[in-house]
């Protein structure tokens, strides 16, 4: 999840006034909600909704790191005895928590390897052509989506591969590179389970009998059509853009050979071996029947047994804030169930029921439009949590798989058009500006719109497939 990382240390320098207003809203809006619903709901439910709203406002305005509002919420509901401690903190011993922890350890190990450095060295040594370089960036982005569950982390890892190709005065060419970089690392993030922490949050929000259907391969099967549409659309869009910018990209560049990469071949190959083991374990699950989270955790333990990661590296590389964030958020479903609020939330959207009953396509179109509008104001992670919390119980009401609704919300809310909407885009723009690189913002915006529509198209094309899989 890009946003969780993005939020840390990204406070605007002159934000005192904004922060004051935002913190005031954290108190004011829940109070107004309390007054509004005072007579309609039991006290426990009402207080929980007010606290949840306060957390959501904190998320929307990025007042603290993302994990803080979630942790504060479960702390307060426990202190107020609204929800038993076992329910409030259930995220910390859920399967998802261990899955994310294990994946993060493996990703931390991968970040310590020199594979990308080696790739860059090869590209430079062979004076790789522009298309080859692009291909390498896309492939690295997609491959990393398999193993690094953070779009921002992936974008940072791939950054050196594109950095050398930015040229002064070639705004469209640079925009093209930036696009490849951004979307190569983000477009498939919801297609592969391990591509985004919010995927794990969705998995954690599903009940056990549903979530077991969507472990790694099951998830990939369910998203395969959407993935294909996005991949084909991505390649087609790149082809169109590359034709448009061909004249600018012709000249070969003389490049500096990158500084020597610190190489530890044992670590590199061992990491690759671990991922191979993981892949084999995923593919043979029907034989060994061991849940994915225990496999991943075992591999993570193996890393420590063989001294693959030192403590200082672990402190530096492991994304603890996102791990805590996931643990706090997956408890929302059980807490709502415990308080009897799931059904209340599902009943708050009566307008959606006839829409879905009339036509699934219409229902999804309205849903996606709603997600788009909310994403104009709300960052990706909070937007997903708000929408998933409100809408997953609703899936039950209309008799479709909650995963489908969750996936649609996730895929659309991970789309972005303007830099403020996504950490990867804002980081890219900040980096380009810092390097004083010319780039064409209108080109970026236009293609972002295209890719956003591509995500929506992928959902529509997937509907018959999901019907065939008996999800809807």
């Amino acid at each position, binding site marked *: 999840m890009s946003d969780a990382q993005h939020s840390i240390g990204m406070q605007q320098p002159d934000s005192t006034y904004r922060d004051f207003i935002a913190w005031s809203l954290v108190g004011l809006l829940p109070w107004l909600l309390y007054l509004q619903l005072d007579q309609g709901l039991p006290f426990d439910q009402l207080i929980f909704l007010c606290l949840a709203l306060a957390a959501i406002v904190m998320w929307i305005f990025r007042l603290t790191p993302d994990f803080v509002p979630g942790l504060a919420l479960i702390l307060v509901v426990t202190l107020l005895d609204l929800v038993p401690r076992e329910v409030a903190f259930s995220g910390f011993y859920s399967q998802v928590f261990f899955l994310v922890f294990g994946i993060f350890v493996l990703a931390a190990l991968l970040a310590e390897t020199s594979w990308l450095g080696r790739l860059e060295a090869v590209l430079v040594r062979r004076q790789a052509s522009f298309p080859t370089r692009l291909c390498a960036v896309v492939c690295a982005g997609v491959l990393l989506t398999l193993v690094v569950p953070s779009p921002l982390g992936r974008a940072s890892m791939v950054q050196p591969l594109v950095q050398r190709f930015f040229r002064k005065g070639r705004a469209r060419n640079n925009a093209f590179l930036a696009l490849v970089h951004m979307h190569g690392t983000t477009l498939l993030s919801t297609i592969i389970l391990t591509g985004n922490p919010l995927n794990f949050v969705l998995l954690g929000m599903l009940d056990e009998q549903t979530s077991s259907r969507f472990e790694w391969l099951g998830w990939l099967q369910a998203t395969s059509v959407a993935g294909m549409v996005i991949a084909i659309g991505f390649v087609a869009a790149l082809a169109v853009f590359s034709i448009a910018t061909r004249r600018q990209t012709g000249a070969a560049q003389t490049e500096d050979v990158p500084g020597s990469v610190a190489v530890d071949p044992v670590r590199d190959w061992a990491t690759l071996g671990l991922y191979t083991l993981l892949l084999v374990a995923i593919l043979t699950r029907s034989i060994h*029947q061991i849940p994915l989270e225990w496999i991943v955790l075992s591999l993570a333990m193996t890393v420590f047994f*063989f001294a693959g990661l030192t403590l200082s590296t672990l402190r530096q590389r492991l994304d603890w804030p996102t791990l805590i964030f996931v643990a706090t958020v997956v408890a929302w479903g059980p807490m709502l169930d415990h308080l009897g609020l799931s059904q209340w939330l599902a009943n708050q959207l009566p307008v959606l029921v006839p829409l879905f009953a009339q036509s699934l396509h219409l229902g999804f179109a309205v849903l996606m439009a709603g997600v788009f509008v909310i994403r104009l104001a709300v960052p990706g992670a909070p937007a997903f949590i708000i929408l998933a919390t409100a809408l997953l119980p609703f899936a*039950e009401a209309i*008799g479709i798989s909650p995963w489908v609704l969750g996936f649609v919300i996730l895929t659309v809310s991970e789309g972005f058009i303007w830099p403020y909407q996504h950490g990867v885009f804002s980081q890219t723009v900040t980096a380009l500006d810092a390097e004083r690189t010319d780039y064409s913002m209108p080109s970026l915006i236009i293609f972002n719109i295209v890719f956003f529509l591509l995500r929506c198209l992928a959902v529509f094309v997937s509907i018959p497939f999901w019907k065939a899989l008996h*999800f809807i």
Partner: protein
Amino acid sequence: MRSFFAVAKYLVIALLLLVVARLVASQNSEQTKILVVHSYNIDLAWVNDIDGGIRRALEDTPLKINARTYYMNLRNHPDCNFYKNAAADVRFTIEDWQPDAVILVDDLAQALVGFDQLRLASGADRTAIANVLNGWLAGDRCATPDLSFFHLDDPEKGHIPEIVFAGVNGGVERYGYNHADNVSGIYERKNYAALIETLISLRDAYTGEVAGIMMLNDASPTGQTENLNYALEDWGPFEAVPPVSAITLEDWEAAVADANARNLMLLIANYQNVRDADGHLVAPDFLIAWTEANAKLPVLGVNTRFVADGGMMTVAIAGSEQGTVAMELAIASLADPPVREQRDAKQFLIGMNQSLVRKRDLELPTIYEAFSREIGTFVEIIEQLYVVQGGAGQ
């Protein structure tokens, strides 16, 4: 020398990991996997009672059993498409997890899941059974679809688990179980002797005329099966008039008015799938409270939840027994050699709301009150009172 120890250290670690992996693998291979599939969801007290019974059986067995539970939730979505999707989901779970035995609870799960997992005798006419099931599943919910719609045309060919049924009211011939050699289970056939005894007590306590009895149920598949079984039963000394399957609240109200006009005592078993004029499900507690308030003669429930939903009295099959026996049968079917039995329910529950009994001014045998005092839950106004009476055979 130093590098030798470094390598040796890693070899020792690898060896330790292998030992642990071997331990885990052997633990996994020793486990018996049993999947419990409920037709409905935990919003039904019946389902929770059965789960309680299953847990008790699991605690009592020395075997290592890995049990998973799946709730098809069909009561809340009585439409063909949802039936189909839920069945496909269970099939996926069975294919993926490969349980050794599958316990199927209530009729719909037998049709949607059990029929697919049978080891049928060579002479069985599978297509004929499938056609009957297909029509039964479609009911008035949708036009009878192609056999492939509910996946009735393509039986499981790979791993076939042991099938254990529970909560089945009538026979299991409809599901082809009589032609299969991998089926055992426990019936939920009503304890008719106990029902008739209680009806006699109610008739004797009631001061007005009792012309007979009438069963009233919703139009769900289970409700219709109940009605069918009721029609086949000898209810002497009572005259049993034909049962009613109410689709709507209007049907239900008309049936109660009809029973009042004809001085019939109502028997009610299934009432969760009655819809109002807008097509919404009528809340069960509202329906039963309304029925209790508007029925002239005493109403007897045949459902564990009946008294909690506002009824006066119920005589129902114990869900916990269904769960316990189903799990015991599943374990027995996996023994070497396998033991496959079909048993009848032996335990039933009596529920009674004392305040409603008094409201109707009925003098019932003190045994009911004695039971409740025995377990120390007797209060003047009681919402829910169940007493287990063991060993009362059919």
